[in-house]
């Protein structure tokens, strides 16, 4: 048995964005897609469980691809052909090597290169990426991009799994980072007052009071990592292109919706195309001329 799954794609032209996937028995998480709901509603509200519909996801991806374009339409801008006289001036330099010729003739776009790279990484760290990562961290970096995204949040001995949003956690003394307690490297531009409390010789003008040893006032600012840890961190190879992309926001603010006509808050939603408008005035214009959905 098969079911149809709508895939997000970034192509500008409308393509059939679906594929056949094998359906292995009853899956309660997919029960919402039961055919009793009707074909179209199933497509429209595919991931009703909190996620946006696949149609919306497709629209967003296409919009982002649109924003990424250099020109609105595809224009070919050839490199002007050099005059023979000017081309002759190359004679002073060495002849073009095969590498240079290959690179100049390559018509690959960034997307092609990225796909090649991802394929090479997925194939087990082969390809060109293997030449770069020589260090010990290669294994982590050369995993598939999904795995790499997980790996970048992993805590190797050098890191502290700190959640920066929560202050409670940070005040707790962190034992992992200071496995080798060496004096912190001199940090002249650090103006963190708490950090300098402990090394008071740097600030000779600190006022002495009887409260200095009060446990309630003690600072638990973590110390600078040791030189050894810093050397290890610096020796790490770069993450792959996809792994270095910023993740979703930490603070889960509700998404804001804007009026598709005037840009004010999108207060009402069009019943047919689900775009937002701010009020009846904008909605009428939208309905008359812009609303492109017919079902």
């Amino acid at each position: 048995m098969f079911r149809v799954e709508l895939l997000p794609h970034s192509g500008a032209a409308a393509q059939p964005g679906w594929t056949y996937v094998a359906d292995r028995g009853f899956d309660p998480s997919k029960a919402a897609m039961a055919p009793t709901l009707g074909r179209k509603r199933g497509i429209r509200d595919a991931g009703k469980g909190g996620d946006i519909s696949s149609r919306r996801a497709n629209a967003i991806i296409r919009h982002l691809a649109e924003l990424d374009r250099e020109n609105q339409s595809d224009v070919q801008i050839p490199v002007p052909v050099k005059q023979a006289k000017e081309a002759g001036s190359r004679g002073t330099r060495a002849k073009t090597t095969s590498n240079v010729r290959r690179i100049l003739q390559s018509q690959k776009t960034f997307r092609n290169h990225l796909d090649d790279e991802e394929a090479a990484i997925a194939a087990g760290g082969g390809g060109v990426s293997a030449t770069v990562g020589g260090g010990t961290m290669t294994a982590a970096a050369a995993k598939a991009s999904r795995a790499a995204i997980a790996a970048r949040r992993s805590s190797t001995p050098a890191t502290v799994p700190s959640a920066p949003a929560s202050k409670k956690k940070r005040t707790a003394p962190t034992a992992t980072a200071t496995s080798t307690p060496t004096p912190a490297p001199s940090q002249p531009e650090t103006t963190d007052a708490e950090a300098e409390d402990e090394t008071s010789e740097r600030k000779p003008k600190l006022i002495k009071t009887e409260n200095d040893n009060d446990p309630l006032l003690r600072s638990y600012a973590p110390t600078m990592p040791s030189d050894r840890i810093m050397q290890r961190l610096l020796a790490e190879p770069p993450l792959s292109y996809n792994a270095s992309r910023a993740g979703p926001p930490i603070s889960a603010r509700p998404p804001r919706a804007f009026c598709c006509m005037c840009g004010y808050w999108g207060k009402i939603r069009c019943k047919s195309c689900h775009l937002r408008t701010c009020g009846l005035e904008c909605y009428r214009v939208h309905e008359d001329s812009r609303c492109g959905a017919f079902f």
Partner: protein
Amino acid sequence: MGTTKAKAPAKTAAASPSTSRNLPKQTFILDNGAYTMKAGYAPGLSDEEDALSACTSIPNALVKTRDNRIVIGAQLATHVTDWNEAAFRRPVEKGYIVNWEAEREIWEQSFFEEKATARNKQLRIAAPEETTLVLTESPNALPVLQRNTDEMVMEEWGFGGYARCLGPTLNAWNEIHTLFGDTLAAKSESDIQPADCLLVVDSGYSHTTVTPVYKGQALQRAVRRLDIGGKHLTNYLKEIVSMRQYNMVDETYIMNEVKEAVCFVSNDFTGDMERTWKANRKRQAEESVVVDFVLPDPNAGKKGFMRPHDPLLHAKKKKGALSGLSAEVLSEDVLVLGNERFAVPELLFTPGDIGMKQAGIPDMILESLSVLPAGLHAALLANVLVVGGNAAIPGFMERLETELRQIASSDCVVRVRRASDPVRSTWLGGARLACNREELGRVAITRQEYQEHGSGWAGRRFANTI
């Protein structure tokens, strides 16, 4: 791990006596951005003003104008007057040099032209084999593209020395302490050293990156990228304006001018939104954020400009000559910009507004810090440097500082500074690095070494694994 560590000092030890290992004296710094290249010879030790006078910005693009002429790089400033419907071809895609056919043409024209003209006097590389090239790249480049770059630089032009550096890290070589207002005793001018800890936010044309830099080297595991840059902002503005007012979809250049003239980052998004609401506009016309932008008129040779919004302009125009407006005013095309002014740069802080599932810049900074030892957080948060063209948007710095302060731990001091010249700051850092011959010798390779070991070795060398 032990092997690499043991090797690294051995390498420097071997290299330092031969620092001048035939590394040419002259250093040419090239910050090869997607929008403009910042190029020039390193001026030697001098103050910032003097150094920057040696740096020239050249558009990194081929342009096809409306009348089908193709104009390259530096000629754009002089040869193009009519920017309507200009189409661009940029060899740098997503911040990385992808199309070398076009890039070679631009480099050739900018740096290697045979006859010396007034324009290229400063930039001409007469003898590449007697020049060290310091070329910047964006973080997390694809190894294939890095390799292509190395091969082109060393085999097509044959530079005598070559260093491919991570762009953001070069900023650490600038005078960070004066910028942040730290007073340091015993500042030796003779010995230029990078700042110890610096968090560089580079918001450019193709993307925005966060790079923690420790003693001039990037902490690779914490480099993060938001795929929104100036290009996306321009395109977004273009799209909104085309939807609401005139069709501007082919006017990338003009919309970029509009963006630079009117956009600002709002520090009170809700309030500004109310102020620009059409029902509220009439009530508070005087303090409104709404402005008019008069579009350029190439036939009359007039440039575009911004002026306060005139709500009655439309009605007056309808009346035509009766209203007493001059013919000049009647013929001009005006864009009215209200919430577009701040909703567009808002994408850098809330990419969720266009449905993107990435964090804004402040969240990205914290995400970057979260994979680093806690001991570094305070030092990095106290030294946040913003470079790149988007840093020039009014309100950007205030917003970043406010939001970062809100989400960062209260134990940390948060200081956010804009480089004095955010666009050329990276170039300037490169120029100062070039003054430190020992360090330059450590990062650069010579032509001879390249010929001996090949491009694979060069790639490993720049990736710091040999």
